[in-house]
């Protein structure tokens, strides 16, 4: 294994700038790592389930990535001025459209579909001259919390291969935590960046709604979806946010305000005294009860560290948060039912003819949707269709929107008393693959309890590693939330705690992660599925 892959993006930038290493070397090292650990043959589109590896990638594009790397190296050699992250490779969640590479949303519905256009964040990544390694796995159309709902096989957690990597963005979280990519892009509708970060021991950020363009991000729930960085360090997340953030005239909901400075804030937060005087609010409703013991222990430890660094800890209440999950699943599924209506076999993607009987448009649409969507997608489409139906709209969608307003007010009130809010990111560490796919889907939904409120409120959150739970040795995440537009504050606070924890552990948490290649060698893939 090439030790280059353990370097953070910020460290790679330094080495690139000093010409100590080339982008080609970096890119090749990550491609080799993907080849060695993902069970993915490079430049193939083999999406068969149960590959002998992490299966973080649905598609890799080695040639394209290396070509960009070569161009960057040449440009640097020629003394050209380059964007900050030029030459640092990145992985992109397969919910974001990319011209020249497949985009599937991990659904049979889009198998083989090639987007004729780039999403805005894709364009920004290209403009930043970052080699795109490939597209990462997810729950179908980002619907799920475990990546088990991908049509193309589960992604495995590098800390324990029989465990979920979180979801929906398990692929992006695993790609960075298993050193397949220094950076990745994810999307977060109810925790799809943060919960995978928590259970894989990595960093994930859901920015303020509107901070990053959604143009070219396959919509799940438009009023909640937000693109964000998946990384191993807070500073890297800040650097990536600066690349992809900013106003986009193609997205009416995008914020017209300056981007950053995020990296500068992250650097400042990590210095001694960076957290002094910070008021940290512990959310009463998201503390203690219903959270795994090891999660609570690591959370409390972090709070003690913050206190010791001069932060002031207060307790705040978000009374409406109890209703958040219910409101979230109604609003999200309502928007899903409409956003996913376009997948009907008429214009693109899968088209399935009825097996018998007349071939009418209704029957083709119906056969296509029956064959193309997985169970979780169907469940949410049906739930949302019901919630928007005449006679039920007020009771379901209408009430949910009222709860949303109350939650927004709760956050506004809480931020009167503190600068950031804090809670565990997820109630448990990574559970076993298959544990929650049978029976009651509510079991999986409950894992989103701490993450969905911030999507409903539109406020930014970051999840960083808080250590390993004593009972299972698996990563625990801690989540900070700031008022809308105050993303910079999160990078400052996140980097501050990260520095304190790394100092306490003597190394980043990932240093404790088992060697992935040995894990894969010893794992019985046949049995775990």
């Amino acid at each position, binding site marked *: 294994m090439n030790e280059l892959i353990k370097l953070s993006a910020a460290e790679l930038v330094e080495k690139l700038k000093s010409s100590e290493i080339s982008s080609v070397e970096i890119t090749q090292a990550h491609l080799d790592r993907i080849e060695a650990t993902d069970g993915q043959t490079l430049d193939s589109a083999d999406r068969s389930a149960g590959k002998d590896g992490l299966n973080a990638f649905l598609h890799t594009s080695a040639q394209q990535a290396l070509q960009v790397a070569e161009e960057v190296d040449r440009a640097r050699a020629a003394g050209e001025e380059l964007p900050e992250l030029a030459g640092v490779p990145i992985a992109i969640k397969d919910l974001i459209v990319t011209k020249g590479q497949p985009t599937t949303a991990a659904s049979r519905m889009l198998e083989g579909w090639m987007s*004729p256009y780039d999403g805005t964040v894709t364009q920004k990544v290209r403009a930043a001259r970052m080699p795109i390694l490939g597209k990462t796995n997810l729950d179908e159309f980002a619907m799920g919390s475990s990546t088990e709902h991908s049509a193309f096989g589960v992604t495995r957690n590098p800390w324990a291969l029989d465990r979920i990597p979180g979801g929906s963005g398990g692929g992006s979280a695993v790609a960075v935590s298993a050193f397949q990519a220094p950076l990745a892009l994810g999307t977060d509708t109810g925790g799809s960046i943060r919960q995978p970060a928590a259970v894989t021991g990595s960093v994930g950020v859901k920015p303020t709604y509107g901070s990053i363009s959604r143009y070219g991000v396959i919509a799940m729930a438009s009023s909640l979806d937000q693109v964000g960085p998946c990384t191993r360090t807070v500073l890297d997340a800040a650097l990536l946010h600066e690349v992809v953030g900013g106003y986009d005239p193609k997205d*009416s909901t995008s914020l017209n305000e300056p981007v950053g400075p995020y990296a500068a804030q992250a650097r400042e937060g990590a210095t001694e005294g960076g957290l002094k005087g910070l008021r940290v609010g512990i959310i009463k409703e998201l503390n203690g009860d219903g959270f795994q013991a090891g999660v609570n222990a690591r959370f409390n430890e972090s709070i003690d560290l913050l206190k010791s660094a001069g932060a002031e800890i207060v307790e705040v209440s978000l009374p409406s948060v109890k209703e958040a999950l219910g409101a979230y699943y109604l609003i999200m599924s309502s928007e899903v039912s409409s956003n996913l209506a376009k997948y009907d076999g008429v214009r693109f993607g899968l088209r399935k003819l009825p097996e018998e009987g007349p071939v009418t448009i*209704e029957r083709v649409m119906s056969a296509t949707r029956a064959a193309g969507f997985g169970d979780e997608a169907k469940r949410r489409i049906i739930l949302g269709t019901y919630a*928007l*139906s005449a006679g039920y709209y007020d009771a379901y969608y209408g009430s949910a929107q009222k709860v949303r307003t109350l939650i927004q007010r709760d956050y506004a009130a809480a931020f009167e008393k503190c600068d950031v809010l804090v809670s565990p990111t997820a109630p448990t560490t990574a559970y076993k693959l298959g544990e929650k796919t049978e029976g009651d889907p509510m079991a999986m939904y409950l894992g989103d309890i701490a993450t969905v409120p911030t999507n409903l409120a539109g406020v930014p959150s970051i999840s960083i590693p808080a250590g390993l739970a004593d009972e299972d040795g698996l990563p625990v995440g801690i989540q900070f939330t700031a008022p809308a537009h105050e993303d910079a504050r999160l990078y400052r606070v996140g980097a501050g705690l990260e520095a304190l924890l790394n100092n306490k552990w003597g190394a980043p948490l990932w240093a404790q992660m088992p060697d992935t290649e040995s894990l894969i060698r010893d794992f019985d893939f046949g049995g775990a599925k």
Partner: protein
Amino acid sequence: MSEEILSFEEAMEKYDPVLGFEVHVELNTKTKMFDDAPNEFGDTPNTNITPVSLGLPGVLPVVNGKAVESAIKLGLALGCDIAEVSHFARKNYFYPDTPKNFQTSQFDEPIAENGSIDIELEDGTVFTVDIERAHMEEDAGKLNHMGGSTGRIQGAEFSLVDYNRAGVPLIEIVTRPIVGAGERAPELARAYVAAIREIVKNLGISDAKMERGNVRCDANVSLMPKGTTEFGTRTETKNVNSLRSVERAVRYEIQRHAAVLDSGQKIVQETRMWHEDTRETTAGRPKSDADDYRYFPEPDLVPVVTDSEWIERLRAELPEPPAERRRRLKADWGYSDEEFRDVVNAGAMDAIEETVAAGASPAVARKWWMGEIARIAKVREVDLAETGATAQTVVELNQLIEQKKINDKIARQVLEFVIAGEGSPAEIVEKRNLAVVSDDGALTAAIDDALAAMPDVADKIRGGKVQAAGAIVGQVMKATRGQADAGRVRELILEKLGVEG
């Protein structure tokens, strides 16, 4: 199979009609409602599209600011209140002409509400029609049903979709129920749609061509027994694509409703399709108020916010309203009530205005547009403007007459040649050698011949019967193939015979 209908007169004796209209106006903005694909009619199918018009995965809509301005202008012209904040919503239904399987429209918070317009019928009677709302939405693509005999979806083997029209900006204007039109209901229906067409054309916000579907009308009709006030069950007639169709369709539905009600049956609330060929409606799909489109606020768009400064600026830009313009032109031109009404009904107002502006007198402009050009338009069944005659044609023809280069009869021939595309009147006169024979020498020879051929007539004239000169003039005109100035010929004849004219 035709349905039973009552005679219109009998229907009117027993029932009062209630009307309601939903008129869709396609805007003539450069780009579509929510993306920058060109808004052009008649191009090769599926060329005026972008990923957004096709609803590809990941795309987002952005509201066309020009379309919002058009909506505000129309709202103001209809006397509506303009909302400070209005929203878009999604109307969800599966149909292949709608790329996203939902239409982005305005639902409970439209941009314009509560207006009214005065509709003047041909005899000058004025009805006030109340406008409930005017809201913005997007058009659907166009389906072409192939392989069947009817061009309809029933019996078709397959259908082709053209998304060029998908996303074209629309404004839907919805009236409140119109009560009290009585037997004039069909006429009012036509006049209402004509007025809307005139208004949007005058505002310059739509090409307003009904034959292209720029203005489309859904006509709601219900009847209530005379003397009652509770509205009956309504039907909504679609596919009425000309002013004539609107009038006929409303008339037909009134007669059909009356027959159904008379037989003791109930009207089915449904969509009816108008067929101009048979001049009947047939049942479309049943439509109930419970049609569930699962409307909800469009999460990809932010509210449309207006302010008084913007609205007042647009109000200041509004052109003169058509009714006011008519009053002004009538006074300027000095036409009688009847003359002016004929001009309006013939759709000749614009042409006459342009012709007068180009230098002709109002009387001359009227003579041509209401005379020979109208006759040609009628024969060819086209609008005046579509004959190919222009203001310049009329001005030039008139100049040629005044300069005595041609006479009226020749001028009419020249007009035919202009319409046939042979060039300007002057060019045609030159090319075809149609100029009046004004060479007295040539005329004298022709007159001598005529006098010699008709000595008895010549004697009569000499004897003082001046009116007999007409026969000689006729003969000369014939000999010169009509190219002589008849007045001058007459003068020369009298001169020659030594008689005082």
